[in-house]
């Protein structure tokens, strides 16, 4: 064997070792949550709110956190989708000079890279300025919307780039206006990307703890108005972990298990819907 083959062998060994490390650690993470979370899961814990000493080892569940998380992530995703899809459609050459569009893309990339805690601080600053203490559902939604806009916009933008120019040109040649082409032709063609982007944003939004932690406070009940404090799954995990009692700490794994399942479900739905909607695409 010459030197080149030996080098190849060495690097293949290294690669196998690193694949093993990566897959091992990732499987470990999932296994730890599933093995610790699944046993402490029960119907009671899923269908009751945390009033009456859930944090103290008594009964109760975390339904209010599930509802709270959905009430935060669903409106935020909806808002971010409405804004994101419009921006992504507008960033095309038809509407905007590419140099300006690229500037906006860089801004969006920067916003994507900004740690979510910064959005939390931003909303906290505004809350302090208007004299609101403790947190509210509204500011949680605003923080999550800001967090999700760059994610959704950039992934829709990437899929719109793939739309063939010929398709747009034939729409124009049939006499449709720019907005009609964008809203009817390009949107349908980019549908798989839009679905993937929206669900990606939803997954990030429902799992993000840092921005929620600073803005929504905590509550043992269902939120009834936008100015209410609310519980959410990620913040509830943090609260449970900080409790001294081991039994209470173990409930954190059940909450994490539910969160993990939601993320998994979103990813399965994404796969299904992208496959389904890409049937209607003109290649």
């Amino acid at each position: 064997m010459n030197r080149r083959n030996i080098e190849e062998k060495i690097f293949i060994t290294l690669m196998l070792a690193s694949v093993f490390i990566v897959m091992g650690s990732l499987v470990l993470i999932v296994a730890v949550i599933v093995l610790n979370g699944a046993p402490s899961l029960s119907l009671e814990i899923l269908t009751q709110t945390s009033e009456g000493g859930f944090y103290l080892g008594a009964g109760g569940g975390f339904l209010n956190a599930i509802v709270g998380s959905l009430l935060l992530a669903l409106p935020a995703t909806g808002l971010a989708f409405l804004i994101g899809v419009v921006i992504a459609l507008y960033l095309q050459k038809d509407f905007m000079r590419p140099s300006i569009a690229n500037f906006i893309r860089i801004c969006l990339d920067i916003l994507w890279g900004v740690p979510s805690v910064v959005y939390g601080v931003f909303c906290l600053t505004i809350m302090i300025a208007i004299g609101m203490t403790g947190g509210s559902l509204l500011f949680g939604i605003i923080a999550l919307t800001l967090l999700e806009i760059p994610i959704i916009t950039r992934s829709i933008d990437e899929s719109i780039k793939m739309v063939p120019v010929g398709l747009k040109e034939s729409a124009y040649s049939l006499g449709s206006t720019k907005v009609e082409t964008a809203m009817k032709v390009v949107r349908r063609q980019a549908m798989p990307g839009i679905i993937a982007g929206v669900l990606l944003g939803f997954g990030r939004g429902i799992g993000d703890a840092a921005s929620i932690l600073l803005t929504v406070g905590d509550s043992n009940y269902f939120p009834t108005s936008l100015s209410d404090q609310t519980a959410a799954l990620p913040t509830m995990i943090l609260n449970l972990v900080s409790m001294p009692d081991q039994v209470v700490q173990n409930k954190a794994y059940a909450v994490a298990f539910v969160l993990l399942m939601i993320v998994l479900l979103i990813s399965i739905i994404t796969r299904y819907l992208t496959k389904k909607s890409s049937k209607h695409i003109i290649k």
Partner: protein
Amino acid sequence: MPSSTLSSLFKNKIVLGGIVSLLLSFLFLFLLNNIILFAVFLIIFIILLFYNFITVTRKLYDSLGSRLMLLVTASIIFAFFLLLAVLINGSLHILSEESLSSLLFSSTWKPFSGEFGLFAVIIDTLIVTAISMLIAVPISLLSAIYIAEYAPKRFRNIVRPFIDVLAGVPSVVFGLCALLVFVPLVRDHIAPFFGSSISSGFSLFTASLILAIMVFPIIISLCLESFNSVPIALKEASLSLGATKWETVKKVIFRASGPGVLAAIFLGFGRAFGETIAVSMVIGNQELIPKSLFGPGQTLASLIASNYTEVSSIPILASALIFVALILFVVVLIFNILGYLVLRRASKRWKY
């Protein structure tokens, strides 16, 4: 025939909606007794009816629609600068109380006695980010190469979705695992192995470890994308010249997908640098200059998470935390711009 054109007109939902809203606004104006506006709208309505109706509404719709879209697009730029402005405005308070140099280069963080030195926290942040990237980058690159070039197709088809799913797992879940697995591991095995016997397990090294694992899926999935976009002809040309597979990877694939790999590393760096919750769960939350890797520390992001509850009792602490958030934002800003410039140069040089 006029009747059929009329019915097709009403089938168009936009036109129908326009007519209904116009009629409603007539009613409204009539109720308000504003005769002049009523007359103006009536004239516009009549002109619209007689002048090629559909063309006008469609053009109106187009121009209104694109204005609205421009407005939304402009609002995101506005939001970007608003974010920056609010953070700068919020940190003016602390900057007027203390000098910038004492904030950045003093290492005592005692909010209750009014000392806000961030030096120790900045050092900790640099150490944690650097170590996590040192662990994550080589391992992720090697595994990405294996998955893209060497692995059998079945393995690849299983691994790729798995990695994509894991890229979306919330950070708090990673933090929880780190708490259960890595903290005892570092306390009982890794720290004694490196000769520091008294470690609680809540340490800089634990945080770096969990950050590295969080960054794996991000770097790998982006690298896979750029490896896969290398044209097969390039690989085949290299192999046909007698290069081994590893030589092809090293000299052809890496060069051709260089910008993509760099972008992946930048993104991973950004995630590790700004990660808040997972870090604050395992790092020990003490603002100290580290004596060893196995001692407790605090990063910029986790400083915010562990101090925000006192904000209402100490007003200037709020300003200090906003200043920390400003540092995070500015570093991400600078890093993104640098990354953009590097990528632009790299993609010019590494053209194939």
